[in-house]
């Protein structure tokens, strides 16, 4: 027996484990620096003047009185924008400041920089603005009739003349949800003294900000550097530019660092929201319970500017039917433009709205056919190799819809509560409800979501790995918004390089190329995929160079013997490798929505059990049982966290969360009246994973962030209707809907 003088340490924190997050302890002990904690010597504070009207013509704008306020250093308006007048995720249709006309309530008109925040606010109050108030366009049907839209999208697939033995029709409305991330928007811009600027501001995608900012500033791309910062959540609200251009303009104008921080109320108007929707559906099935035809009309309200409406409406249309086989599909959808608060990205991205519609339709059809609701879904389950019901794209990756449904059916059903602890009854601590007032209901939600960017978008993530004797550094511009990207990158790098010490270096736009957005359930697959592949290639390069067969923190090995130490491998420096990782190419669809627009799909299935007090219209969600298609579990705790959190966001949407918008004005921009679920509103959640590897991404892992948000809501919505024995056509379901009063 030969023994090597050096033994290989087993590494901890690889794939399949749940290592502690490096930012976990700092976060819970209050030591983590969020964007709102940023500070620079001599910095100014900025505040924004916002439109008090959803639509108005600005007839007078006089900033001189603000400049006269002691401590105010600069006041900027659209006249001060040095370059392109507008910005936008897809088209630059949103002016940096309202110019001439305000198009939504809260639209920025001017920004003020001053010695402190209070003075900046005094400066804002001193600006003289006169408005000619105009009638806002706030009804989505009226907007559609007026052809005020960003994109119409139709799906024409199959034969419209066929019909099934049974047919159900339904109309559904979805209210406007907000991402409500706990950390408010904040940022700091620091001039570099050379005409350029460094921006540290909340963002899900610093490169997209960068591409939008520098043309407006009329600078060379390298002159502005967007840096990743610490964030308390995002959920889509930080894909769009908010304060970014304003901060850069102020820093360049004043020559001093400038900080801005939204308070909760300003956060609610300062970021985009989920699109509210109205949907009409007709579903037809044959007597055997097979879907024959689906027709739908979908309207989503995109508010005043385009943001990502064109992609959201496409998603709504492509995923209008859920994960069910159907060959005859006819959908007309439109994202309209109104004077309502701008809508954009939010977890689930278009698929959330339609899920409420298609799942309700599936229940109605099953009932009509007297088939068990879950069994009906099982009979129509879409799977690998099938054509996608909307685009006709053959599903090449994994899609275990039927397996999920079987697994869900096998989960034990929660017993009625033995305890009469009022906190576990509808009404909770309000003590409204006795156990004998309660009716229990059960409902299902089975839904599908595309993963990563679609429709011919050049979707990639750049990663650079640097290996030295002290460990591994992974350079990326991916946004860590709290989801745990940092841990996944570390785990993947460790797994491949067998080196435990891995640091993620969050890099600015001059240091590394784009990682794409932290959205679309894509970062684990994209930046995780990039990390994995980059590590594999770097390892192979090193093994090739030294003729080894294995690499670890000790060095390069062959046949169990250490050939060279890591220090020797690195030769006093570091081994570096950089790659650009892409997913399989996708394509724009034709005028009928047919083609291959999506790189991958994931399904999720939920069963909700709710207790309802029908007389008072109060609901308690008791339990959610869920099975999710995750490809492969990389980090069990992180996967569970995404699913529990995502599901709770779906619960919130079904019964609590809604921005109340009255003629363009948000009535509840605060946490007093925008009701997020509390711990007491959180159901018990049982989670099972189905692991069928995806054709691309690290080790077959799929994105898991969005699917639970999509399927939880429809399950709860169905369970409430089951409990009261009546159809409801709107979410969130409010007490007055359940009791049937106006």
């Amino acid at each position, binding site marked *: 027996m030969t023994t090597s003088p050096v033994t290989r340490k087993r590494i901890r924190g690889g794939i399949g484990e749940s290592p502690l997050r490096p930012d976990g302890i700092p976060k819970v002990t209050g030591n983590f620096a969020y964007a709102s904690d940023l500070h620079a010597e001599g910095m100014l504070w900025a505040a924004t003047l916002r439109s008090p009207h959803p639509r108005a013509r600005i007839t007078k704008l006089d900033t001189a009185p603000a400049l006269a306020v002691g401590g105010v250093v600069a006041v900027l308006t659209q006249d001060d924008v040095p370059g392109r007048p507008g910005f936008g995720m897809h088209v630059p249709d949103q002016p940096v400041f309202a110019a001439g006309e305000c198009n939504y309530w809260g639209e920025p008109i001017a920004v003020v920089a001053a010695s402190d925040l209070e003075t900046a*606010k005094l400066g804002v109050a001193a600006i003289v603005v006169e408005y000619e108030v105009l009638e806002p366009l706030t009804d989505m049907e009226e907007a559609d009739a007026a052809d005020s839209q960003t994109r119409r999208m139709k799906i024409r697939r199959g034969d419209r003349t066929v019909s099934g033995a049974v047919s159900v029709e339904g109309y559904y409305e979805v209210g406007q949800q907000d991402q409500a991330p706990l950390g408010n928007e904040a940022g700091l811009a620091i001039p570099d003294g050379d005409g350029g600027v460094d921006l540290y501001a909340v963002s899900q995608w610093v490169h997209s900000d960068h591409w939008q900012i520098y043309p407006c500033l009329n600078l060379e791309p390298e002159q502005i550097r967007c840096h990743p910062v610490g964030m308390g959540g995002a959920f889509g609200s930080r894909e769009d530019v908010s304060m970014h251009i304003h901060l850069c303009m102020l820093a360049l104008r004043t020559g001093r660092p400038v900080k801005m921080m939204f*308070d909760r*109320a300003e956060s609610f108007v300062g970021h985009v929201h989920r699109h509210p929707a109205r949907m009409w559906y007709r579903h037809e099935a044959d007597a055997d319970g097979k879907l024959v035809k689906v027709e739908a009309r979908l309207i989503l309200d995109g508010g005043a500017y385009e943001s990502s409406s064109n992609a959201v409406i496409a998603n709504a249309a492509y995923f209008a039917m859920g994960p069910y086989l159907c060959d005859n599909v006819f959908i007309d959808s439109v994202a309209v433009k109104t004077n309502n608060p701008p809508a954009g990205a939010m977890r689930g991205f278009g698929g959330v709205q339609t899920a409420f519609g298609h799942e309700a339709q599936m229940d109605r059809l099953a009932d009509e056919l007297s088939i068990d609701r879950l069994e009906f879904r099982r009979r129509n389950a879409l799977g690998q190799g099938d054509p996608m019901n909307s685009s006709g794209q053959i599903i090449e990756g994994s899609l275990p819809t039927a397996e999920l449904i079987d697994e869900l059916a096998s989960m034990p059903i929660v017993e009625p509560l033995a305890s009469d602890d009022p*906190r576990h009854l509808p*009404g*909770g*601590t*309000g*003590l*409204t409800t*006795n156990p004998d*007032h309660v009716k229990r209901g059960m409902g299902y939600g089975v839904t599908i979501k595309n993963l990563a960017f679609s429709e011919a978008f050049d979707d990639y993530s750049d990663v650079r790995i640097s290996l030295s004797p002290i460990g591994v550094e992974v350079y990326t511009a991916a946004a860590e918004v709290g989801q745990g990207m940092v841990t996944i990158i570390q785990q993947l790098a460790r797994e491949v390089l067998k080196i435990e010490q891995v640091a993620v270096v969050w890099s600015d736009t001059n240091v590394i190329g784009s990682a794409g957005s932290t959205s679309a359930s894509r970062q684990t697959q994209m930046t995780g995929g990039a990390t994995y592949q980059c590590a594999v290639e770097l390892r192979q390069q090193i093994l090739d160079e030294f003729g080894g067969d294995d690499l670890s923190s000790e060095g390069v090995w062959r046949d169990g013997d250490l050939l060279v130490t890591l220090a020797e491998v690195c030769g006093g420096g570091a081994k570096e490798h950089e790659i650009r990782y892409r997913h399989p190419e996708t394509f724009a669809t034709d005028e009928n929505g047919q083609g291959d627009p999506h790189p991958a799909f994931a399904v999720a299935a939920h069963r909700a059990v709710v207790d309802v007090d029908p*007389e*008072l*219209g*109060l609901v*308690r969600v008791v339990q959610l049982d869920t099975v999710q298609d995750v490809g492969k579990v990389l980090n069990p705790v992180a996967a569970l966290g995404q699913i529990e959190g995502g599901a709770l966001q779906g619960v919130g949407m079904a*019964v*609590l969360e809604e921005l*109340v918008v*009255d003629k363009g004005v948000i*009535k*509840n921009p605060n946490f*007093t*009246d925008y*009701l997020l*679920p*509390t*711990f*007491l*509103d959180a159901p018990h959640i049982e989670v099972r994973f189905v692991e069928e590897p995806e054709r691309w991404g690290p080790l077959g892992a799929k994105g898991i962030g969005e699917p639970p948000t999509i399927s939880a809501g429809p399950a709860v919505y169905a369970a409430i209707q089951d409990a009261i024995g009546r159809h409801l056509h709107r979410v969130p379901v*409010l*007490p*007055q809907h359940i*009791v049937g*009063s*106006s």
Partner: protein
Amino acid sequence: MEITRPTSLVEALEARAEDPGADLLAGGTDLMVEVNFGHSRPEHVIALRRIAELAQIDGNRIGAGVTWARLEKSDHRALAQLARTVGSPQIRAAGTIGGNIGTASPAGDGLPWLAAVEAEIEVTSKDRGVRRLPCSEFFTGVKRNALAPDEVITAAILPENVPTNQEFAKIGQRSAMVISTVSACVVRDDDGTVRVALGSVAPTPLRATRAEALIAENPDPSEAVLAEFVRTVSAEVSPITDHRSTESYRRHAAGVLARRLLERCLAR
């Protein structure tokens, strides 16, 4: 901003008499929200927390400075029930019954109980001494009350022999940490008469006197009387539609909730 920190009621009353424009601060859970929203910019704050005599419960006298955290353990069943529903543990640790009375919000959860047990609000000033006002006189409108600029709310004074048979409940869309869309308190005397008070359904806490009269006539109500009770309560309230709920839901729910509380009282 100037802050005065009296340690006795006398000092507080003096400060108040000297500067009637000053804002009184107890737990700050209402006042600081106003400040944070920019609705209020106090120039002078008189902080009441150091005044030990305000924070005392003495027989039928509940000091204005008593926190909800303490009232959660009150022997008055409905007071304990409502105290438990105020905000979160943090809010209950800071917020006081006097602040709730001072704010005089239609949704103030303490107010239906005070109205149902027929408590009086005790207010004190340096120059005019002590006044005691019934709820119907103290609460004058939405966030308006009869407090004079030089007065301080010193206590809620309970009548002798508050019935032990009392129930409170509140409706909010969420299971906890929520503003009432309807709240109710029912108190039942040994002689079978009841007092019914409701919150969030009128500018001030509302006594459903016609519904009370109905039960006075029928202390052992039949199903028909109970149904009439629900209709009467619904007819007596005058709620509004706002971003939290609708007039018709509140009207309906007020009746249902009052009946449930009455039934709980009858069952004890």
